């Protein structure tokens, strides 16, 4: 491939260093792209390491694609490079919801909460579990559209537990950063979630969320930065 595909990472800017992957911002054929690069781990066998990274590099775009088909906006995937475990995707102009939710007028906040519920409802209806639903992974575009990013911990599942964990994480994110209106936002989320997935199922999921809360299990101090 080499030069033709503008493959070098030299001009890339490191945006985020994670435990599993690094995120870079770079220019690619005249457009801004995000490159998610899964880092090799020295502790595991090279063979196993390559396999895991290649698998996940393919798996994540599959989930994103599935989400898209369900009507949920996610970044467009431009290139998948299994050899280097890299995903090239569209750079979304906008702000993390975490940064703007507190400042916006109440009506807008509720409207957005409602869209989030709808979006999660669509995902779950199509078996997609996001796995890390925090307000950091929801991007609000200048056109007030919500784009869901980072499917790195996602999976395909129809289980109540997985759905409950997704919504529980979101609730926790609301509570830790947007505590003043966490409850009303979450209520709005559940209202529109129920509209998509059905009242019956939504009720079961909400019960599960409560059970998970009591378990104290996911009360992880997810540091929002």
């Amino acid at each position: 491939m080499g030069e033709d595909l503008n493959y070098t990472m030299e001009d890339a800017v490191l945006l985020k260093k994670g435990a599993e992957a690094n995120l870079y911002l770079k220019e690619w054929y005249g457009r801004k792209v995000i490159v998610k690069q899964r880092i090799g781990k020295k502790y595991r066998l090279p063979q196993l390491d390559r396999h895991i990274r290649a698998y996940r590099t393919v798996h994540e775009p599959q989930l994103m694609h599935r989400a898209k088909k369900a009507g949920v906006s996610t970044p467009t995937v431009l290139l998948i490079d299994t050899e280097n475990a890299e995903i090239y995707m569209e750079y979304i102009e906008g702000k993390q919801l975490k940064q703007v939710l507190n400042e916006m007028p109440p009506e807008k906040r509720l409207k957005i909460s409602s869209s989030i519920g709808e979006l999660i409802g669509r995902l779950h209806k199509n078996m997609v579990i996001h796995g890390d639903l925090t307000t950091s992974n929801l991007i609000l575009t200048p056109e007030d559209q919500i784009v869901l990013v980072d499917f790195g911990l996602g999976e395909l599942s129809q289980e109540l537990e997985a759905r409950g964990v997704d919504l529980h994480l979101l609730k926790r994110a609301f509570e830790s950063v947007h505590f003043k209106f966490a409850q009303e936002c979450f209520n709005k989320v559940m209202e529109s979630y129920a509209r998509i997935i059905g009242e019956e199922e939504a009720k079961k999921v909400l019960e599960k969320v409560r059970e998970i809360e009591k378990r104290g299990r996911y009360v992880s101090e997810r540091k929002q930065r």
Partner: protein
Amino acid sequence: MIIVRGLKMRHESVKNYCLGIESTADDFSVGIVTFDGRILANVINAYVSESGGIHPREAAQHHSQVAEEVVAQALKEAKISSDQIDLVAFSQGPGLGPCLRTGATVARAIAAYLKIPLVGVNHCVAHIEIGKLTTGIRDPVTLYVSGGNTIVAAFDAGRYRVFGETLDIAVGNCFDVFAREAGYRQKEGLPFGAIIERLATKGQTYISLPYSVKGMDMSFSGLLTAILHLLRKGEHPIEDLCYSLQETVFSMLTEVTERALAHTEKPGILLTGGVAANKRLQSMLKTVAEEHNTKFCVVPKQYALDNGAMIAWTGILAYKNGLTLPIEQSFVRLKWRLDEVEVPWVKT
């Protein structure tokens, strides 16, 4: 000095010795620990089944048969008499019902006879606390791996929070079933894990196995099915199978531990539980700790397996925080989760 110490011993309010009883599964063990954290005795008597895994009723019978002898041996090793014991602690759960009840009965009898307080201890908390006591590590991310449990935990807001755990069987259980199916027999002092570890060092070819990390949780049952299938096909040397099993399982454990470490930014990793003795697992975690510039500690071998000392020590911590248990409320808790337990003695 000597006189003062002598007076202390006889003084009612100064507590010195705690006797801890562990009986959650196949081991019956009694440990004696001083209130300042010195381990004086740790006697373990394991039930070894004729064939198959642990039969709960038979294990419980074994425990009741050896209980008296193990208690006597522990007192002898600690060089104290029974009336010097100030506190009795027992593992209240999680574990096998008949086994837990046998240990609890012994504990209640001693507490009632000596008229001393009783403390119920969570087995998983005890594994973490003995690791902290014996290695001196403070506030780590703990990877606790044994025959019955596989948990990644870290302290936050009054409890040890579970960051990731197995969704089905424990790592030790997976290893045991595989070794048994491969025709190995368990002997005292040589657990299946040690047999697998030895064979794995001679393995050369990595055979791909299901690698199942879901979010922060892990699953080992599919992997076990896959490797049993390979075993029965008989196309691969046992050494390669053991090697591949270890590499896959330990990579999963290490990945989840690293995520918890990156997320919590704790100052170290603690490895505890029966599987902690494995050198390959230790080396993987050490690599991660080095990359994150944090400490890595492994619990010493004799406290890695289920043992009475860890129960005694955790009992002391609980007792100092006023957590005694009236005998009439000392029922066992078979499914007592780690994150249900308040640990007021941990401060960060």
